[in-house]
């Protein structure tokens, strides 16, 4: 019940949010100087050429009319045509989405494993030198942004000790039997572990760069929350039952301590997705973020609009999933 109600209200508010995003992105990118038509034509094109091309893309009409046409199209699932590639925006964007999703989720998993391990170890050895070391590592991880971690990783594992690929998503010479663009996922399903390993070797560094700051946040929040939880009465009661301290933490404390961390991780994960834009560029990873930068450079207005809307959908989707998870994991809310 609770879950259905949440879903329903969320769909309503999401629609409003997306409408707002649509208005803002549409008008803002038209206020910013730079004309897509001028970018496309060779130097020395005549006024006439410009006018003709402008008419072709509907850019000669009044702004409000352009907006109306775009919105009408979007409602029918038509996001227009990319000015630079002349392909439907929706196809382009959905074609790149899997790459970015796989990268973000890989980064999230890495962050949860690293952060969770740091928090659990720190709690298990609380008050000692191990906890101090973990705090220092967390602080360092947090004080350096993801793209700088990207550069550090490139130096370490791309140049000094070249174990991972520093650019692209997959080695170009490989034959790809895939029907979807979820390469990482599909290679697993098809049991093509050779391809899977190649894809992971490409994805490892960008994903880790994105993961490090989030891992530090998870590590800090979860450890703090765990350290409060391990002193609660029910955890102490479990100690009298004969459990060792590690099992006490995992069995009794972890789940309740993870709940308050979860919401914050949701917000931080949307920041991580935002971080893919620069990280994908840095590692020439063919995802949405990389495409977004090209689109901005080329003033490809329909494509920018499409990408921004898609990012907005992803962000609200992530928040919705976090709220649903919170409801499902917290028995006190489930029956409300």
């Amino acid at each position, binding site marked *: 019940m609770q879950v259905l109600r949440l879903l329903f209200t969320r769909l309503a508010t999401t629609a409003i949010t997306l409408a707002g995003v649509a208005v803002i992105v549409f008008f803002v990118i038209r206020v910013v100087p730079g004309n897509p038509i001028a970018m496309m034509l060779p130097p020395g094109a005549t006024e006439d050429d410009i006018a003709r091309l402008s008419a072709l893309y509907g850019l000669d009409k009044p702004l409000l009319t352009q907006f109306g046409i775009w919105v009408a199209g979007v409602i029918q699932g038509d996001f227009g045509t990319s000015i630079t590639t002349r392909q439907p925006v929706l196809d382009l964007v959905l074609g790149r989405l899997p790459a970015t999703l796989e990268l973000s989720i890989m980064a999230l998993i890495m962050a949860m494993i690293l952060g969770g391990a740091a928090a659990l170890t720190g709690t298990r050895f609380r008050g000692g030198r191990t906890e101090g070391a973990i705090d220092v590592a967390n602080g360092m991880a947090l004080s350096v942004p993801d793209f700088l971690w990207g550069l550090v990783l490139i130096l370490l594992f791309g140049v000094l000790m070249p174990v991972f690929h520093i650019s692209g998503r997959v080695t170009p010479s490989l034959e790809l039997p895939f029907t979807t663009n979820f390469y990482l996922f599909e290679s697993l399903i098809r049991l093509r572990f050779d391809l899977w390993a190649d894809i992971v070797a490409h994805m490892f560094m960008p994903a880790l760069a994105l993961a490090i700051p989030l891992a530090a946040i998870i590590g800090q929040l979860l450890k703090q929350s765990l350290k409060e939880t391990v002193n*609660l009465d029910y955890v102490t*009661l479990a100690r*009298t*039952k*004969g*459990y*060792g301290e590690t099992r006490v933490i995992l069995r009794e404390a972890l789940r309740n301590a993870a709940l308050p961390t979860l919401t914050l991780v949701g917000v931080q994960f949307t920041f991580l997705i935002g971080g893919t834009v620069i990280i994908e560029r840095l590692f020439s990873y063919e995802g949405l973020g990389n495409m977004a930068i090209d689109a901005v450079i080329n003033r490809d207005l329909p494509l920018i609009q499409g990408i921004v809307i898609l990012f907005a959908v992803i962000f609200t989707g992530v928040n919705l999933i976090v709220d649903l998870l919170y409801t499902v*994991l917290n*028995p006190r809310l489930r*029956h409300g």
Partner: protein
Amino acid sequence: MSFLSIRNLSVRLKKGPPLLRRVSLDVAAGEVRGLVGESGAGKSMIGKAVLGILPPSIEVTEGEILLDGVDLLRLPLAERRKRIGAMAALIPQDPLTALNPSHRIGPQITDRLVDILGWTRPKADARARELLAEVQIPDPDRVLRSYPHELSGGMRQRILIASAFAAEPRLIVADEPTTALDVTVQKQILKLIAGMQARHGTALLFVTHDLGVVSKVCQKLSVLYAGMVVEDTSVTDFFAAPRHAYSAALLAATPKYTDPLAGLQPVPDAVIAAVQAEVAAFDKGVAHG
């Protein structure tokens, strides 16, 4: 040989003043010992020491805690916990915070049986049902599937009692098990604990403020002041003629059931001064040798 024997136990806040001062007390198998004293006297501290759950900020400076003849303080942590888990149990003070909010009731009763004592799950489940019947909880199957927040405080305390008796421990520490409850429920819970203790023949260390309760459920009594045992006696002797002036004053300060206000008088200042002088003399004695 007593089942639980505490010998000269002293604990303190790390680098701080002592909180327990050479506490000695015994609980024989099947016996109920009351532990009384004003707030802060160290009653819970004794219970925590016995169950191996002293907070990390507290250190034991001397003494032994013999559980069935083995000194718990000499055992490594994991082994100590296993021994305590197999032989002893706690009935906590506040049933609202003593159950894990995200686990169902069933596993919270059976966890020790399955994980520590190696019972099979069906056997443990059957035992849980049996225990819930014994603590007079109707509809056990529904309750076992419930989460703590779905049950009342009284119900939860019954569950914690069931859980404490689950592994047939030889010793139970009950730390003011009724103070957090509604007055109307307190008596029922008290009766339940006393009844189960008698039926199972479990030794019980019963922490309480209430001498009325002591007279009903305990055979032995330790009176604590500032972490020091000032009187260790049988309950009949205590109520006939307490030996220590502080105990006598405590007894006089206890309201009678018939007329709650009539006998109520605070512990006289002179008595407090005398017992404090004893504590000071003790500390001096420790300092000198």
